[in-house]
């Protein structure tokens, strides 16, 4: 596991961690990493370098060297991201090995792409949990509006995935065409048993001789663990059809996401947004003929600075990935040790399993505000004073809060701390102490 010295070394790469609060001059304690991670210096420099060195467009549009320099770096970015995801490259029409990874704006766009382009039909079913992020809920609810069916597998009491309920459902419901799940939850950090889920899906496919597609919202998993999406011969292979993520949660720039697709699936689905470089040929006399992927799915002039930064982020992240999850669990354990007694006394509730090892880098607490409104106000003031950055609200998982309202206080606030590789144990303890002080009275 990473030592605190190694973490201090990593922190040197993040200039913003030395940026003091404008009023109280405190250094930031940044614990909102499930939303956006901080950007290391090499990524920021790459974004800057594009702007000052070769601010041209990619996509083989222009013939000057700004454009070719940009295109070369975009290709390198895709290569780096493919490597990070454990994806195998395939031969492209221009003779180069290319990873089946589409650049999107974010996970949301990737999931919308799948929802709109898979060709799901009336009467077919998409399977979800009742704990999906809005981005992996609303696109499928739009499909429901078009005559599709949604099946929600309720999570268990501790918010973990109910594999048995999933198995029974999949074996009996022959209308299921797609399983669309989060890999790791942004609500509580709980990971679904994805390998086991996929094994069930593939077995049912074989036994019932039908296809069931698997699309994964990987926004909260890809930044925290090594993935193997492409090599059945290596351990940890995840035989998914689609896997979406966001670079802004992976030390990359905002506005850049990715969608991995099994190459033959990308070959076979229609484009989502069209125009620009998505086409092979257009005419006013017939509908457009579309280009191969990735061009077919990357419409319009792209955020090239961001794409280049994304590649540098992938390169930066890759050697760290194996250490991130164990380290986050260590940080989470430090926070849980302070907050578990309050959970036991029902002064607050830690969402998900109490065991921090099962919650990755997230600790979300629900605090009642009916009688303790002033306590929450005190916590907020203390957090601002200490320059602790966290997230409060429903974290885009409103549906879970709504369907579990009977297990929540009448009036409450949910506060989420999400940890990452550059956070220190003392930062984690400081944040937990603020909560304990406000809601536990010590």
């Amino acid at each position: 596991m990473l030592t605190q010295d190694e973490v201090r070394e990593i922190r040197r790469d993040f200039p913003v961690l030395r940026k003091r609060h404008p009023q109280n001059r405190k250094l930031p304690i940044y614990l909102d990493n499930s939303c956006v991670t901080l950007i290391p210096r090499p990524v920021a420099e790459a974004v800057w370098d594009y702007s000052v060195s070769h601010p041209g467009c990619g996509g083989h549009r222009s013939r000057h060297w700004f454009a070719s320099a940009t295109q070369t770096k975009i290709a390198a970015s895709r290569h780096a991201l493919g490597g990070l995801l454990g994806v195998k490259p395939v031969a492209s029409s221009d003779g180069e090995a290319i990873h089946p990874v589409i650049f999107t704006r974010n996970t949301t766009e990737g999931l919308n792409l799948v929802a709109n382009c898979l060709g799901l039909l009336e009467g077919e079913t998409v399977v979800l949990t009742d704990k999906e992020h809005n981005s992996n809920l609303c696109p499928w609810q739009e499909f429901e509006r078009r005559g599709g069916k949604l099946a929600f597998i309720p999570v268990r009491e501790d918010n973990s995935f109910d594999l048995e309920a999933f198995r029974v459902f999949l074996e009996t419901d022959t209308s299921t065409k797609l399983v669309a799940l989060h890999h790791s939850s942004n609500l509580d950090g709980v990971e679904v048993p994805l390998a086991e889920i996929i094994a069930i899906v593939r077995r049912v496919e074989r036994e019932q001789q039908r296809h069931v597609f698997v699309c994964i919202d990987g926004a909260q998993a890809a930044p925290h663990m090594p993935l193997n999406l492409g090599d059945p011969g290596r351990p940890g292979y995840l035989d998914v059809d689609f896997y979406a993520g966001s670079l802004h949660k992976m030390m990359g720039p905002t506005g850049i996401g990715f969608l991995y697709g099994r190459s033959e699936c990308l070959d076979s689905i229609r484009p989502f947004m069209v125009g620009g470089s998505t086409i092979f040929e257009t005419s006013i006399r017939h509908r457009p003929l579309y280009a191969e992927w990735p061009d077919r799915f990357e419409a319009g002039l792209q955020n090239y600075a961001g794409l280049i930064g994304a590649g540098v982020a992938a390169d930066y992240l890759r050697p760290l990935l194996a250490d991130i999850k164990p380290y986050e669990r260590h940080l989470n354990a430090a926070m849980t040790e302070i907050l578990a007694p309050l959970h036991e006394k029902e002064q607050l509730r830690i969402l998900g399993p109490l065991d921090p090892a099962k919650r990755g880098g997230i600790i979300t607490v629900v605090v009642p505000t009916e009688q303790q409104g002033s306590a929450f106000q005190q916590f907020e003031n203390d957090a601002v004073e200490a320059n602790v950055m966290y997230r409060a609200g429903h974290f885009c998982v409103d549906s879970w809060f709504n369907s579990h309202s009977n297990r929540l206080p009448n009036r409450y606030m949910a506060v989420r701390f999400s940890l990452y590789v550059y956070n220190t144990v003392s930062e984690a303890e400081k944040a937990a102490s603020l909560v304990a002080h406000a809601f536990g009275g010590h």
Partner: protein
Amino acid sequence: MLDMVTRQSRLLPKSVVDDYLIAEGAEGYNAFAQITARCSQQVNHAYAVYVWVKSDRVDQISYMRGSGKFGSGPGSDIVEEAVANFCAFMDGRFLHEAEEISLKSLMPDCAAHRNECQLAAAKTSSRLYDVLRQGGTMPFILMNWAFWNHKLKQIISETVDVREDGRITLGNASGVERLLQKLAVIPEFGSQGRALELAIRGLEGSTVDESMLRSAYQRSSLETLRIRAGTRGFVDPFAPSFRR
């Protein structure tokens, strides 16, 4: 993205161009294939064939070439010339004969055709031989794809609703299922597995030529066809550079 900058061959005289190039997108074809390749300089080139099949015979045939921005070069020109010669060869034949084309069978016909049309670029038969041998793999693949394209359209129109303009209505999952059953038993399509189903789903509201189903069978058969082209006398100097 490819800009269709070349709608007329710079190698062929106008008489041939008029015969074998379709202006403005080839209206009225019922078999189609396209391929993208990097066969000269560092730019992509695209070749497409448009065929009107009547009673299984090629009634009209034409091709189109598109090159990446401002791209051209000797390799891409050779391929274009070979495509034009294949078109001339196939004119009037049964489309399924595309499967059997070889350099040996092609040469006499094309040589005769060359004399007839006074092909400017192929002044000697050795020149024609070189062009067909070096550039023949891509048109060989294109003609085979055009044959499957036509076959596919026939199967689809027998199975689900197809409007006059070629647009397909699957309706619901049973339409997908019926098509899947019919196509899965044909090796070129069956080998696609889950991708075949996705491609069929993408047919809704689309024509076959616009669809990803076309690119699906093209992808699955490319390697096989390249090898078959090799056994029929066509070398492939552009072998590593194209996929579909």
